[in-house]
């Protein structure tokens, strides 16, 4: 199945494990430099500079370090990791091995969401083959003292575990409740040891970065968002699927690419993202504009956006871990108010309440879930005023 996809970076051609061989040749500090100079940022959605993360872990003093690949893809509308793990698993694992070499880790974990359990046999096969080929195990590719292996741990159905500290809690055998930061996983991660946690897509780009160089990587994308992004497109269009686009691509271009007609709105970033109206289709996918983990859901003129907002809020109500009050208590209130809007019973005061509650949730929630749970609703209320009518107070 590999090679059938085309794209500037991740879907471009590369010899398997050539990036790892190059890494061993140029040495740790050069690998760290390449990754830092490429300005690659985390592909999971938060966009933290990967080079900084790796450097922090590399310089942390501990004789035990971990590399974790976050494959707990759960954002509604996202399925790029399903494609990467199904078709490009070697590339992902190679990225993890390069990372381990660069930061000095000897243990890797792929945290695979429980929903993707059907990928397990094939992934295990790939890992076994890598062990046979001395791409994992002891003295990898005859590099003395470079020992590293990867094991797979399955999630058990919790969206919030995609948050890195919550993922660590889950790995340690606890409820997946996010931790306070700092300390950051780069020095206090899994079992208290320095840990790099990156998204599947970030690891998939690493071999390309090392082999083809930071300058090549930066030739794609914008000044502030270098490289490319995998987007998962779904909803009202003729060609849904996973595409690789350079950062800076406009929504308009994406809509044309997937053959979407009669589009009313595009939800960028999944349930925790923003709903964009037609007048903003010239905006682009980039960290400095529309930042996303890759979820693009298209709605045509027939769709009721209040239903969309309600679906997202119900999702967050179900997936909130319940640990902090603004998130746990705020979401049900938003749902209640939204129902009032749908029944044309909401007054101007209700709308004001929604905005002020959303602000509180953004400021006071502990993790990204609560901080972004209201974003879709707020963007719909702001950009699609025609979708609702208020009651005469």
């Amino acid at each position, binding site marked *: 199945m590999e090679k059938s996809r085309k794209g500037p970076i991740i879907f471009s051609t590369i010899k398997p494990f050539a990036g790892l061989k190059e890494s061993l040749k140029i040495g740790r500090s050069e690998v760290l430099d390449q990754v830092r100079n490429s300005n690659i940022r985390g592909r999971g959605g938060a966009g933290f500079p990967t080079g900084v993360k790796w450097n922090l872990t590399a310089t942390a003093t501990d004789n035990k370090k971990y590399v974790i690949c976050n494959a707990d893809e*759960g954002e*509604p509308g996202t399925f790029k990791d399903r494609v990467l793990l199904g078709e490009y698993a070697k590339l992902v694992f190679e990225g993890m091995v390069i990372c381990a070499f660069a930061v000095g880790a000897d243990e890797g974990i792929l945290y695979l969401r429980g929903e993707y359990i059907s990928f397990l046999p094939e992934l295990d096969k790939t890992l076994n083959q890598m062990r046979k080929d001395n791409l994992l195990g002891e003295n990898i590719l005859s590099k003395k003292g470079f020992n590293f292996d990867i094991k797979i741990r*399955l999630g*058990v159905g919790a969206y919030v575990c995609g948050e890195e500290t919550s993922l660590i809690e889950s790995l340690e*055998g606890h409820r997946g409740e996010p931790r306070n930061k700092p300390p950051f996983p780069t020095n206090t991660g899994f079992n208290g040891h320095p840990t790099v946690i990156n998204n599947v897509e970030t690891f998939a780009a690493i071999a390309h970065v090392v082999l083809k160089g930071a300058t090549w990587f930066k030739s794609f994308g914008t000044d502030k968002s270098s490289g490319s992004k995998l987007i998962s497109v779904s909803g009202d269009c003729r060609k849904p699927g996973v595409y690789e686009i350079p950062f800076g691509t406009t929504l308009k271009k994406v809509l044309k690419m997937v053959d979407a007609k009669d589009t009313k709105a595009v939800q960028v970033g999944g349930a925790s993202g923003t709903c964009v109206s037609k007048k903003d289709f010239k905006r682009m996918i980039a960290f400095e504009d529309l930042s996303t983990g890759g979820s693009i859901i298209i709605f045509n003129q027939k769709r009721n956006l209040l*239903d969309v907002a309600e679906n997202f809020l119900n999702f967050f109500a179900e997936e909130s871990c319940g640990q902090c009050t603004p998130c746990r208590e705020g979401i049900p209130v938003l749902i209640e108010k939204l129902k009032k809007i749908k029944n044309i019973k909401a007054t101007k005061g209700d709308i004001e309440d929604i905005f002020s509650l959303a602000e509180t949730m953004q400021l006071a929630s502990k993790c990204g879930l609560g901080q972004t749970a209201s974003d879709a609703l707020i963007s719909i209320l702001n950009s699609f005023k025609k979708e609702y009518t208020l009651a005469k107070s």
Partner: protein
Amino acid sequence: MDKLCSVPKTITDGKTNVTICDAKRSQLIPVLRKIQEKEGYISNRKMQEVAFSLGIHPVEVYSVVTFYSFLTIEKKGKHIIRISNCITADMAGAKKIIKTFEKELGIKLGETTKDKKISLEETSCIGMCDQSPAALIDGKLVGKLTPQKVKNIVKELKK
């Protein structure tokens, strides 16, 4: 709290054996997954046994079991159908699919057939939005569901 057992242990209730090697707290979820897979739920007794072997309080195990949606304290069917309730599934007609499942199985969403063979549930996005409506059936991702496909699936599971 994280008392470590240095000796591998086998937990048994006469029917099922679960071996915990290097029983650390971090093994808790993999062990619970195995029990869930084998028995269809995690009983009070099992929770106490697991807690004992890890040197933690049973309530800690209970708190973990009840946190994750794939771990349950109620017995589920041998086969579990989890329909995605993602917005894209909704848009692609998931309601009709759910209705067909309900009709074919004779149960409502969230219930298990009387013979404890099949459970019908909904779940958050399963990463199949390009093939909506979709479901996770016994761990397998099934997309582009149609009423006819549903009928075939139920027939197959009932066998």
